[in-house]
Each structure stands twice: as C-alpha cells, then as structure tokens.
C-alpha cells in the first residue's frame, strides 16, 4: 500500500518540479555558504599574515620608544567561524569576526563595523537556514494541502473509505509518504553540506540536523491538523499560507518592533561620547589626579611614581585608561540591555517555532547575538591581558628590540558555551506532537464524515 501511495505521489509533475526547485535552492544556499566561509578564511589569513610584518615594521620605525610602538601596534582577535556558519550566516555578516585593537582605550575600538553594503545586509542571504525556514514549509504545504480534500472533491474518498480496513492508518500513510520524501530531501542537502562546507560530524551538527528535522515535523503537524478540519482544498491552501505568513513575516517583525521599543539602546553612543570625554579632557588637566586614579585601578604599578616630564607615556596610557574607566557604567548597561534582548528573543522562540528554529540554528552555528556578545567579552579580556603585559614594559621603557614581537601572534576565540540539547530539540517536537495529536483526534472523531 505504502509503495503504491508513494508511486502515485511522486508521479505528479508538480511534485517533481517542487522537489527540483527546492533542491536547486538548497544547492545555491550551499554555494553561498561556501563563498561566505572562504571569505571569512581569507580575512583571517590576511590578518594573521600581516600582524607579524606590521609589528616588526612598527618596532623598526620606533626603535627607542616602546610606548610609541604600542600606540600604533594592533593585535587581532579572531572569532572562529565554525563550518556550520556556512549553513546559517545569521548576524555574522553584520558583525565583524575579527577585532583589531591597540592597547589604547577599548570602547572607541570595540564597535568598529566591517565594510558592508547595507543594501545587501537588508536583503539578507539565501543561506541554508533561509531555505529551511521559509521555503521548506511552502513545499510541505504544496504537498499536503489537498492530500485528502482532493479525494473528497473528486469523489474518490468514499471508495477509499469503504475499501480501506484501517482508514486512519491510510491517512497516516498518506502523510508519512510525504514526510519521508521531504525528510529525504532535507537529509540529502545536509549530507551535501557536510561535503561542500567540510562540516565535522560533531554534536552541534547533529543538533543542527535535529532542529531542522524538528522544524519540518512542526509543519507536517500543522498541515495534518489543517487537513483534519475537512475543509475544501482552496480553504486549506489559504489557511496554511496565512499560517506561514503569520509565523514567518508578521510575528517576527512585530516582536522585533516590540523589542526595539521595549529595550531601546541609547547607550552604544553614550559610551563612545563618555569615553572620548573621559580621555580627552585629561589633556587639559594636571597629571597627578589622572595618574592617581590610574594607580587606584592598578595598585601594582604604583612603584613607577608620578612622572615629571611634560609628556610621558605613563600619563598618556593613564588618560586612555580613564576613557574606559569613566565610561564603564554605560558600557555595562549596554551589554546588559543586549543580553536582555537576546534572552527575550529566546523566550519568544519557545512559543513560535520559526523564531526558535532561526535562533537555535544561529546559536549552533555561532552566528547569533549571543556569540557576538561572548566575542566582545573575550575582546575585553584579550585587551586587558595585553594592557597588563605591556604596561610595565612601557612604564620602564623596556627596549623595543628586546621584545619578541613575533610571539604576539593572532589569537583565536572559540565559543564553547554549553549547548542544551533538550532546550534546542524539545519545543519543535512538542509543537509537532501537539498539532499532530490534535489532527489525529479530529480525524478519529470525524473519520467517516464523507
């Protein structure tokens, strides 16, 4: 029976076109992912190769003043891009994956944006997550909206109902065949992705695949439920497209709007303004209070004393430090608001499968806001380590030549935040089961309404 159902389903021209189109879209998305990964790799290669040369050049140009060398010297921290990010580019195109900082004030450097075409950012990428989240549901809708209603409309349902020993089983098989076809397509694409993007077969990948399957199940659940309402094909189609519209366009956009107004962010700007003021006004002030504040922050450097020359690197870096110290409150508030936004989106995601899928795929691919925030935190720590390493050398005017500049290689940040498999997989499974179950009940109740 299953075999016959499969053959009658796959014989339709529309089905073949739909599958072909989605397969093609999937392939394109993989190529775009490949392109994205290549670009990321090239960027970090450029930076890694250049840092050594640049540092040596600065050291050669300013052989007597390590303070001056460090005024110019930039140290890079790369946010490692996992191969999975090729499947779900997320915010990685908006936020730079490489931070290059000098040991001067951090706040002024932290939010440097990449060179991006804003038009392309607005339009977004056809990455795999787009194909999965937007296009797969359409295919599922197209495959199932008339699966049963068409038989009714053609008058064949009565015959099926009379001849079938287990009508409920027959309905289940009708959907299972379609589910199997769609899941096969999904798995083929994921299999190709492993090859094309060089994705390691590790935990995140299997969770990524699991989330994708879960999302497909949610849509099958929805379609099954709509089919159980026994409406005409046209109504089913309109109803399902409306659900698609609400889940993928209206709710996300509405929630986004809500979050923007609920958690407004004047602080990003306030931080820079405050930082600039904190640093620059020190030029016109006596040195002693600035250096005293610096020593209050870093008591370990007190032995270096208070400089008495007109210009002194200790004083200079103390001024820079004050820029960061005096804007620390604004900076912290900004970080907190961003974390709130991230947390609230995830909470909404628990109720809205499309949001959950996108947020979790980005989280697994380390391309969401969460990863960006952790990268910024790591940048702060990285910057602090550089400062603590170089401060004593600058203050004691350590010979530039004695420093092993080649040891300051580009550092990489690998995001190892824990993944909660249950949190990722349960919501879509529950949604799928809920709608599937509701549909099942409906079918059982009205099974022989012909």
């Amino acid at each position, binding site marked *: 029976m299953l075999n016959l159902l499969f053959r009658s389903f796959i014989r339709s021209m529309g089905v073949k076109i739909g599958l072909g189109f989605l397969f093609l879209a999937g392939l394109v998305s993989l190529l775009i992912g490949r392109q994205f990964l290549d670009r990321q790799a090239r960027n970090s290669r450029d930076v890694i190769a250049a840092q050594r040369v640049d540092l040596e050049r600065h050291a050669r140009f300013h052989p007597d003043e390590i303070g001056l060398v460090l005024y110019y010297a930039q140290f890079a921290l790369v946010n490692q891009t996992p191969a999975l990010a090729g499947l779900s580019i997320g915010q990685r195109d*908006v936020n730079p994956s490489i931070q290059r900082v000098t040991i001067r004030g951090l706040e002024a450097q932290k939010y440097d*944006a990449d060179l991006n075409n804003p038009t392309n950012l607005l339009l977004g990428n056809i990455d795999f997550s787009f194909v999965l989240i937007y296009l797969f549901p359409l295919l599922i809708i197209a495959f199932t909206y008339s699966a049963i209603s068409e038989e009714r409309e053609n008058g064949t349902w009565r015959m099926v109902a009379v001849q079938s020993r287990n009508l409920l089983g027959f309905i289940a098989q009708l959907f299972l065949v379609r589910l199997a076809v769609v899941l096969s397509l999904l798995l083929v694409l994921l299999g190709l992705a492993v090859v094309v993007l060089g994705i390691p077969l590790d935990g995140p990948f299997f969770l990524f695949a699991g989330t994708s399957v879960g999302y497909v199940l949610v849509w099958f659940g929805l379609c099954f439920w709509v089919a159980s309402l026994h409406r005409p094909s046209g109504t089913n189609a309109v109803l399902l497209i409306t659900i698609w519209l609400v889940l993928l366009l209206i709710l996300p956009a509405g*929630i986004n709007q809500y979050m923007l107004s609920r958690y407004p962010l004047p602080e990003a700007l306030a931080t820079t303004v405050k930082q600039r003021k904190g640093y620059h006004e020190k030029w016109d002030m006596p040195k002693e209070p600035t250096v005293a504040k610096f020593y209050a922050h870093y008591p370990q450097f007190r032995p270096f004393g208070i400089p008495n020359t007109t210009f002194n690197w200790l004083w200079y870096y103390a001024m820079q430090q004050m820029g960061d110290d005096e804007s620390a409150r604004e900076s912290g508030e900004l970080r907190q608001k961003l974390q709130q936004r991230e947390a609230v989106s995830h909470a909404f995601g628990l109720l809205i499968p499309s949001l959950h899928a996108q947020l979790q795929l980005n989280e697994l691919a380390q391309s969401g*806001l969460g990863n960006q925030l952790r990268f910024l935190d790591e940048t702060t720590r990285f910057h602090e380590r550089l400062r603590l390493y170089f401060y004593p050398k600058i203050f004691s005017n350590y010979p530039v030549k004695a420093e092993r500049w080649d040891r300051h290689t580009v550092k990489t940040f690998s995001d190892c935040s824990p993944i909660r498999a249950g949190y990722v997989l349960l919501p879509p499974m529950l949604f799928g089961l809920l709608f599937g179950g509701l549909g099942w009940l409906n079918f059982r109740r009205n099974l022989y309404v012909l």
Partner: protein
Amino acid sequence: MMLQLIAQKEFTATLRDRRFLVAGALVLLLLLVATWTGFRNYQSLAQKRAEANQSARAAWLGQPEKNPHSAAHYGTFAFRPKSDLSFLDFGLDTYTGSSVYLEGHRQNDAKFSAAEDATSLIRFGEMTVAFVLQLLIPLLIIFLCFGAFTQEREENTLNILLSQGASVQTLFWGKVAGFARVIGLVVVPALLLAATLLFAQTGFQGTADTALRLGLFVLVYTLYFGLFIIGSVFVSARSTSSRASLLTLLGIWIAACIALPKATANLGESLFKVPSSYVFQKELHEDVEKGIDGHNPEDARAKELEKRVLAQYGVDSVSQLPVNFDGIVMQEGEKYTSMVYQKHFGELQNQFQKQNSLATITGFLNPYLAVRDLSMGLSGSDYDHFLDFKAKAEAYRFALVERLNNQMKVFSKTGDWEKTVSRDFWAKTPNFQYQLPSVGWALGRHWLSVLALLLFSGALVWGVGRGLKDVPLV
C-alpha cells in the same frame, strides 16, 4: 457603463465575503499599527539624535582654552537626522551607521547601526508601513483576485456574462476596477493617518518637499498595487482552475518578493568584490605614506612643502617664518589624506553601487525591486541619502579642521604647541546642520527604477491586451 456595473458587482460581492472582511481588516489593522509604531519609533529616534547633536555641540562649546590642534583631536560628532518620511520606510537606516566621529587626520566611517545591537530576529524584516505595502497587500490582492475568472468559469457564469454582450476586455477591466476600489478601502485610511501624523508633527507647516515626497510615495504604491491587481486577474483569466491560478500567483509572489531579492544581493556580492576591512585600511595607510601614486612619499612631500613656504615668505629657515609652519604642514597633510580617503572610500562605494545596480536592473523584470528602491529613495532611507549625509559630514569635518589649522598657522610661531585660543573661539565655528536633499535630487538618483516601473507597466498592459484575445471560456 457595463464596466462600471461589473466593477460595482465585484466591489459589493467582495464586501459581502466574510473571509475577505477578516483578512482585509487584519491587513488594515497591521497597516495602522505599523504607521503608529513606526511614527513613535521615528519620533523617539529623531529626538534622541537631535539631543545627541546638541550634546555634541555643547561638548564642543564647553572646551576650555586649549591649543587648536588639541581640539582637532578632541573632535566632535555628526548624528544623522531621521528624514521626515523614514517612518513609512525604514529602508537601510537600520543597517547604516547613525553617527560619524569627526576628528583631525582621518575620516571615520559611520558607526552604530541598529542592526549590530539586534538579535537574529531583525533579519526576518521589520514591521514597517513599507513592509505591509510591499509584501502583505500584494498577497491580499492575490487572495482577492485569484478566482476572478476561474470561479466564473467553474460556476459556468462566464458564458452567460459574455453572451449578455460584455466583452472579455470590459469584463477584465471592470473586475480590475472593482478590486482596486476594495484595496483602496484598505490602504487609504492608513495613508490618511500617515499624512496626518506627518503634518501634525510639523504643526501643519510641512515643506513642499515633504508633501511632494509623500505624494510620489502614494503614486508609486498605487501603480504597484495596480500592477498586482491586473497581473492577478490576468493569471486568473488564463488559468484552468482556481487552484492553478492561486498556486501560480503564490509562486510568483514568493519568487519576486522573497527569493529573488536575496538572490540578486548574493549575486552582486560575488560579482563585485570588496576588500576585507584589513586590506582596505592597509592600502589606505600605504597611500598616505608612499603617496597616492606610489612615487610621492610623505617625507618628500614635507620637504617640498618646506621649500615652497620658505620661498613664499622669502626667508631661509622655518624659525624665521612669521607664521606657525606646523599649522601649514598639518593642513597640507589633511588635504592629502582627505584625497586618499576620498579615493578609497569612493572606490568602495562605487563597488557597492555596482552591487546595488544589479537589483535596479532586475527591477525591469521584477517591479517589487523597483518599488522598493523608489520607496526608500522617497523616504530618504536609501544608500544615496546615506552617502549624501556622509559627504556633508566629511565636508564639515574638513572645514572644521582647516579652520583649526589656519588658526594654528596665524596665531603662533613654529614649534609653539602651548599657546591656546580663548573659549569664545569654539562658538565661532559653525554648527553641523544636515539638510535633506530635495525630492528632485532623489528622483535623479532613481530614474532607472522609475523607468523600470513605467516600462514594466506598459509591457504588462500590452501583454494583457494580447493575452485576453483568446481567453478560454470553459
């Protein structure tokens, strides 16, 4: 006469359809909510930016007596004001930086876009008026029109209608007119609200420019909806069943409004490559150091300048100059670096414009892209308006730094970095005030999209005229 009768019939029939009433009311509600929240959002942003501009100015004015060059390093900020119509279409505003830090020696890129602070949610799109108008109303039109002919055919009323003397043409345009009235019922209230909010904001003294922008905005969308209605009714006329008609139309909608725009963006990005941020900075620094042509290094330029200035004042050492030579050196350096920055940013922006032009060209086949482009252009939230802001901010920066360097040159002698200007000097430097370019300028930037929209409309009407000649009756 007949045409009006048919239009009236479609209009009345639609209003009696409960399903449509629900869908139409929902879209209207969304539109009103989008207008209102968009406006609130715009107001708060506009206010914040105005305040930020004021506080940046206050910080500038509040500087103590200091050396002019120290002030050039202190710098100031230019905040991009929101354009009046941007609450209808946020356009690129979410993805472009909101402020530029203006300082001596270098041009900074605009920083702090809203997208950097957003969760992945933002990539689903924003609930703006333009979003509803560009994506949801077409969908409503599709649901409204897909059965226009097929239903008549399925119920065997098409034969009867035609046998009563109505031509297919009359029937077609009558239906189009009827549906247009229905859509007007949904859109007009929201546009009235938008216009009221817009003009109430300025105390009903809005400029002619804003009114013109709004008028054209309405015109563009009217045409857009017209295209969708004509296209949908046409597809219905040519389809064998309502189901086929609906599927075709939904397919077109998804391809034109969801998938194709992204595809053009990705294609543009791979055709016209831009350097990584690192390489960009490196090439920039190299050009400053070695000269823009690679044969005019920094120290050679300095020597040449010294010779020229000494000759000009007829003295033979810098210390004998009646002016501060450092001021001259810095101004010359500023001119040179500005030129280098202009070259590199110009090349980058050219590359971006090329990427964008792909979407403009695709607009000839896909009116969604042309309308999107025009809508952003009229709302002042497109890339051109952003570049205009950047250019004006840069011009202001250059004038400011030039003023400081000249002050340095005339009021002290070479090597004197201690002499300060009095506090009232800060107030004498003009404030940065950004003026939105005129609507004519905006149209000039988007004439290709205007042409694309008009050509597409012409082609559609012509194609419909031909296609209606052999419409199947059963």
